[in-house]
């Protein structure tokens, strides 16, 4: 609801800002030399490792490269379903 509200009152983003933002994201990947396939495979490996300790929501798991203060960071958002007791 709030989303619709803000969209109604917000001016359309300039297309140059869209261009800049898209470029920024694509260049992070280009520069890190990391393909979506590689990222997917990293994600799968992460799940395997984490699953040894925690039960995580594999569907909701997100792994991305992002730009933090002029450097590139690997950001993972991993929702935990349950902590495994038996370890």
């Amino acid at each position, binding site marked *: 609801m709030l989303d619709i509200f803000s969209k109604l009152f917000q001016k359309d983003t300039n*297309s140059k800002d869209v*261009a800049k933002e898209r470029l920024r994201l694509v*260049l992070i990947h280009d520069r890190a030399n990391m393909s979506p396939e590689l990222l997917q495979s990293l994600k799968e490996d992460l799940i395997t490792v984490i699953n040894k300790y925690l039960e995580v929501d594999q569907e909701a798991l997100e792994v991305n490269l992002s730009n933090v203060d002029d450097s590139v960071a690997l950001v993972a958002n991993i929702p935990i379903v349950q902590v495994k007791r038996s370890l």
Partner: protein
Amino acid sequence: MGEVIVITSGKGGVGKTTTTANLGTGLAINGKKVVLIDADIGLRNLDLVMGLENRIVYDLVDVVEENCRLRQALIKDKRFDNLYLLPAAQTRDKDAVSPDQMKKLCVELKKDFDYILIDCPAGIEQGFKNAISGADWAVIVTTPEVSAVRDADRIIGLLEAAEIRNPKLVVNRIKLNLVAQKDMMNINDMIDILAIELLGVVPDDEKIVISTNRGEPAILDEISLSSKSYKNIVRRILGEDVPLMPMEAETTFFGKLKKLIGLGS
């Protein structure tokens, strides 16, 4: 001892050849002894842009294969005695020349010329590797479009890997009206993204089409906006400190540029 500058972009069609022709002519206007090398073997075009297509006898490949002497292959410009063109071969492919041969050629030319400008082919394959091998530094041409900027970024990385440091950026074909309405990236946006030094900005100018049709570099035109931009870039290459066109705000940028061509107040 001369200086070898490679004009490159990654993406095709952004204006490498036009930039090479105009900067070379501009350096010659300033009394420098200049040679332009068309490194785009198989897709020769710098001769056409310079209006020298009917004078070609030997080409770059003939020189490296020693079918002729270097002197014989250099074509003297129609307008300036101190400007020469070494054309690309049209019927060969990029593998006809090796990076080592290009390096040797550049060393040879540096003895006789103040500036050696190399028009690099599009792409990042063999032709690119040949073109950059003898270069002291690089001019990267881009347009304010996502695809051209992305490719420019890739080229910056590849140049760095080849130890060609500090490339300088020419933003070509900027459309002032689109920048003003924020539908085209401005100079600050481009510098922000690519993080390299700006050498100059060339606005989109119909004059370029006309001058290319005639085979006369636009810089020879006294009044056009693109001619002024090229002259500024030439002065910067010569080491002069020419202030960049104002870039604080797009509107100011637009206004000042309009003023430059006598449209604004």
